[in-house]
């Protein structure tokens, strides 16, 4: 079995790429995809540690994270659509007013 260090390093690299995407990119949809990247990095860490401990808890947590990610994607994309209808922009810097 591959050492835990490798899996945790991979997980932290993917997480950091997600953080960089949220900071660097100004497109709301791409920022959203970066958040999904971060969720997946954490899932990877859960699975790696869980399989080394021989416990199923990590996999159950990953199951819940997936469910919450689905709910979050549905609500977030609804917000993106309704804000795009009002503003005709996907640029995060243009969406500074918290009303329409």
């Amino acid at each position, binding site marked *: *079995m*591959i050492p*835990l*260090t*490798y899996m*945790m*390093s*991979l*997980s*932290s*690299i*993917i997480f*950091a*790429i*997600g*953080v*960089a*995407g949220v*900071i*660097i*990119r*100004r*497109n709301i*949809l791409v920022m*959203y*995809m970066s958040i*999904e*990247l971060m969720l*997946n990095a954490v*899932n*990877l*860490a859960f*699975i*790696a540690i*869980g*399989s*080394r401990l*021989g416990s*199923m808890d990590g*996999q*159950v947590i*990953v*199951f*819940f994270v*997936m*469910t919450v*990610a*689905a*709910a*979050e*994607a*549905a*609500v977030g*994309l*609804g917000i*993106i*659509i*309704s804000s*795009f209808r009002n503003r005709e922009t*996907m640029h995060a810097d243009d969406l500074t007013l918290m009303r329409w």
Partner: protein
Amino acid sequence: MPPFLYIFLGALAVVSALGVIMQRNPIHSLLALIGTLMTVAILFIGEDAVVVGFLQIIVYAGAIMILFLFVIWLLNLQVEAGPTGHLALKFFGSIGAALLVAELCLILAPPHLLVKFTHEPAGYGSLASLAAKLFTDYLVAFEVTSILLLAAVVGSVALARRLPVVFEEQPRAVEQPRVVEQPRVVEKIAS
């Protein structure tokens, strides 16, 4: 799985994760994200989490990413033209991400955290063991999740629906020409 396959999949995951944040076209970002999700799913399967790996492919790469794709189509997003952001933001963002990698590797992967590998019980990662855990220890969380999904469905429909035409305020000084109403009574009688 042999170790070189882990290395290959890890490299593939990192490259496609970089593709997510570097592509200018949102569709290309989405494709790269699907690549990352698939690679991570194969890593899950390699870590004996077979059911969760397949769920990742079906639910994440199948359902959620198609939702993203529909939104990109619906909003008719084009390739971003011109500069995509501030250069200083990119610079400091990259440095911050590199520091974060160093910090996380230091915290998460020191030698003392290398837990002893206990022999996995029989049927580890199978659907039966996952369901047994899910419906005994995590039953309350499971039910709460169903309520959360219901709330998310209602909320997303309420957010994304087209609002009815709002009453537009007219300037008061301008008198609106009144439409002469047709005498409807006559029509009713005639019909």
